[in-house]
Each structure stands twice: as structure tokens, then as C-alpha cells.
């Protein structure tokens, strides 16, 4: 019987292709579960999960918490704003304190890249990375690929363009790893200032012209401009960004084919994507949210099955 090759989900780069397929196959079953009248299974009754969010999050935290509760795990939540982190406690101390309360798994979001990897070496619990700085956000990439697979049948052979702020995006990096692992072709598109240097070394082509990128792709994953992470101005004005890199109905209608539009949220309506596109049949933004719960249930279930009794 199949089992994940890892004990933690720290990033897509630590996964094998079979791991992703196993997660998807399990998520298919959980998607059926969350559409039942009673959307809960008792598998993780004896597991306690701590959600440690050292950085703000709304949807990821909600999605994880719902996934945990749907699996019947006990859940404790922690956010940095109300904690001793401000009093000077180290990450390992904070987590070890929480683990002494007999916690089996930790879901962590942290502003420092590699925080999950660091923690996995120092504490005795299964770690799920819910976003570490601008590094990785593996569950988002898994749910994005799961949504592509659901809409287009398969990820292999599909052409995906990631548009927008690649530089500050952990979603972009995890998506690139996951899509490449599953055999998709990936390009990135955005203002030069928001494309990381040396991204070509990952085998990724950069396209600066949005129309050309959309003409090429089957799926466009529109990222949000992360103003909160920008210490300097990366483009002259939001209006100019929208003009060059915003997707509108008119632009989509000018293409020869119908492409799938994705967005990890939260959407800046009228900036990277217009309202009529976001609400159209072509957009699978809300499917991504629903699939997020199923995929996270699968990840938690599969990692929990490796925990020692």
C-alpha cells in the first residue's frame, strides 16, 4: 500500500511525483466526504494539531482548521500577535512549550524562509508548512494543481503561466516545483522588477508581454501584487500595472481559445483581474478554495498515518 516518502510537508521540492499523485487520490475521496450531509470522518480522533500562525492569514488558516475538524482532530490555534513571541521567546521554545501539551502535528506559517525545515530538525512532531516567507506554500500549490487536474483532466502536458508578483510570492515557487514535477510546462509573466533574477535556472521562461503569455497557455494563475512585502516601488503606479498585467474580459475574448483563470486569493478586483473575469465560468477561483480543504485533509491524513501510535 502506498505511503508518503516524507514525514513532514515542508515544501514541494522535498516531494516525489508519486507523493503528489497519492495526495490527489486521497483528496478525491475527501472531496466526496465534504459534500456529504455530514461532512466529517472520525479518522484523527486521537490526534491534536496546533496551528501556529506567526504571520497573518485568513483563508489558509480557516481552510486548515476546517480540514482538521472534518478529520475529527483536536485543534489549537495560536497567532503571534497574542503570544509570547513578542516577549522574546525563541521559535523552538514556543513550539516545544506547545508540544509539551501533547500535540502531534504542527501547521506553521512564518515570515522567515526555511522556518519549517528548521523546526522539523528541532522538535518531535510532524510539521506542515503553511507558508514560509517568500519561499514555499506547498498546500496552495497542491490545491492549484488538483484544481487544474479537476478542470482539465490532467496536469501533465498543460501549459501554465504564472502572472504578476513572482518575486514576493511563495505561491509561485511552490507552483513551479509542483507543476514541473507533474509534467506541465511553466512560464512566468510580469514586470521585470517583480521577476526574480536567475529564474531561468529553474527551467522557466520569462514572458514580459501578457497577451503573448495568455495566447500560449492553457491556464493562467494570476497572483496578487503583494504591496505589504514591497519595501520600494517596483512599478510606477497600480493603474499602469493593471494596464499591462491585468486580465480583462476584452483581453480574454481576443484570444483564440478559452483558457482557465486561477487566483490564490485574496483578489484585488480591478487590479490583476477584473470583476467580470473573476466571476466568469472560466475562473476556478472558488473551486480552488473548496479543493483546498480536501487537499489539506489528504495531506494531514497521510502524514498522520505515519505518526507512531
Amino acid at each position: 500500500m502506498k505511503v508518503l516518502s516524507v514525514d513532514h510537508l515542508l515544501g514541494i521540492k522535498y516531494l516525489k511525483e508519486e507523493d503528489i499523485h497519492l495526495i490527489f487520490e486521497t483528496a478525491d475521496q475527501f472531496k466526496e466526504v465534504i459534500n456529504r450531509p455530514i461532512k466529517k470522518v472520525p479518522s484523527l480522533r486521537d490526534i491534536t494539531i496546533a496551528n501556529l500562525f506567526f504571520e497573518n492569514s485568513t483563508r489558509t488558516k480557516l481552510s486548515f482548521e476546517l480540514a482538521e475538524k472534518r478529520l475529527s482532530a483536536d485543534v489549537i490555534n495560536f497567532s503571534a500577535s497574542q503570544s509570547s513571541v513578542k516577549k522574546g521567546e525563541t521559535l523552538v521554545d514556543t513550539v516545544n512549550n506547545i508540544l509539551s501539551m501533547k500535540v502531534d502535528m504542527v501547521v506553521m506559517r512564518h515570515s522567515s524562509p526555511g522556518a519549517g525545515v528548521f523546526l522539523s530538525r528541532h522538535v518531535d512532531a510532524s510539521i506542515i508548512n503553511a507558508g514560509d516567507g517568500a519561499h514555499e506554500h506547498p498546500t496552495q500549490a497542491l490545491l492549484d494543481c488538483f484544481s487544474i487536474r479537476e478542470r482539465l483532466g490532467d496536469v501533465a502536458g498543460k501549459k501554465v503561466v504564472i502572472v504578476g508578483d513572482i518575486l514576493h510570492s511563495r505561491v509561485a515557487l511552490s507552483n513551479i516545483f509542483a507543476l514541473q514535477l507533474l509534467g506541465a510546462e511553466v512560464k512566468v509573466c510580469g514586470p521585470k522588477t517583480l521577476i526574480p533574477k536567475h529564474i531561468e535556472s529553474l527551467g522557466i521562461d520569462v514572458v514580459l508581454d501578457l497577451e503573448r503569455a495568455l495566447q500560449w497557455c492553457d491556464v493562467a494563475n494570476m497572483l496578487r501584487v503583494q504591496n505589504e512585502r514591497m519595501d520600494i516601488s517596483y512599478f510606477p503606479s497600480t493603474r499602469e500595472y493593471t494596464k499591462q498585467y491585468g486580465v480583462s474580459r476584452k483581453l480574454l475574448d481576443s484570444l483564440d481559445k478559452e483558457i482557465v483563470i486561477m487566483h490564490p486569493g485574496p483578489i484585488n478586483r480591478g487590479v490583476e483581474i477584473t470583476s467580470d473575469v473573476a466571476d466568469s465560468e472560466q475562473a476556478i477561483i472558488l473551486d480552488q478554495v473548496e479543493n483546498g480543504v480536501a487537499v489539506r485533509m489528504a495531506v494531514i491524513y497521510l502524514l498522520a498515518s505515519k505518526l507512531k501510535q
Partner: protein
Amino acid sequence: MSHKVLLSSKEVNIILHRLACQLIENHLDFKNTVLIGLQPRGIFVANRLIKILQEEYQIEDIQLGQLDITFYRDDFRRSEKILAANSTEMDFLVEGQKVVFIDDVLYTGRSVRAALTAIQAYGRPTSVELLCLIDRRFSRHLPIQPNYRGRQVDVINNEKVKVTWEEQEGEDAVYLITKTEQAE
């Protein structure tokens, strides 16, 4: 490992016909009855019974579901084996319905216990019955007994009952497999 044939293809067929007739006796037109095959191997028994009920007794529109009990099992993280889930296909609710669980081999009764929990996610059935092709006697861990049984067998612990199907393994048969000490 040694194989002994417990039931031949002909015997399996006769038993399936008898079980179909017993179901008709209790459920007549199957109007408020749903048959649910338990994944993975109860599905084959359920499909065969449906085929007999439709083709030989002209009972149409029988509701058939497939229920996977993986997430309801009581041995999660307790066994060496990793539990992989199968698909559940239940496009109806069981509220107010008479449910018949269908499985190939009834052994410890733990799968049926899990199925009883799982079915609650689809509503409150008026009754739940159990049909199994093979009932392994004296091996129950829970107070669960079948309402319809194909054949009762006495099997010791290091023996395994394996049901094979023409559509899956190429023949209908029931085998008793004895593990030799080297094989273990």
C-alpha cells in the same frame, strides 16, 4: 502457501441466486431499499446480485451504492499497513430507507462496525441488514451477525478466505489459503 477450493464457480452462482431470492422475500420491489456494496470487494457481490435481480426477476430501478469505510476504521495508525481509500459512490440519501450492506467475507466484524458509522453521514436509515457471501464462524471481535449468508466456513487464524471474480481475477471461486510457516 496452499490453496483449497471452498466453492466452485457453479456453487457461487447457486448461492448468489439464493441470496437474491432471499432479498426479494424481504424487500419485494426494493422501493424503499438501498443496496450498498462495501469497498473494496463487496462491490463485486453487489453488482452480481443486482444483475440477477434485474435480468432474472425483472426488478428495475434498484438503488445501489458503494461505500468506502477507510476513514471510519478503528485501526488507523495501529496497523503496519497504510490504509488507502477507495471511492464512495452514494448519489442518494438513506434517510428513511432500508439499507442492506453487502460484503464478500465477514470476519472480525470491524469493517461492518465502520460501515455502520459511515452510513450515518448519509442520514438515518430505518433499518440496516447485512449480507455476506462467506461467514467465517468463531472469528468475530464484535457482536455482528449477517442477516443473509452464502456459506458458513470454519477457518483458523493463519488461513485466509479469498473470493475471486470472473471480471477481476478470471474465475468465480472461493479459496481457502493456508500460509505455510516459511511464507510467514
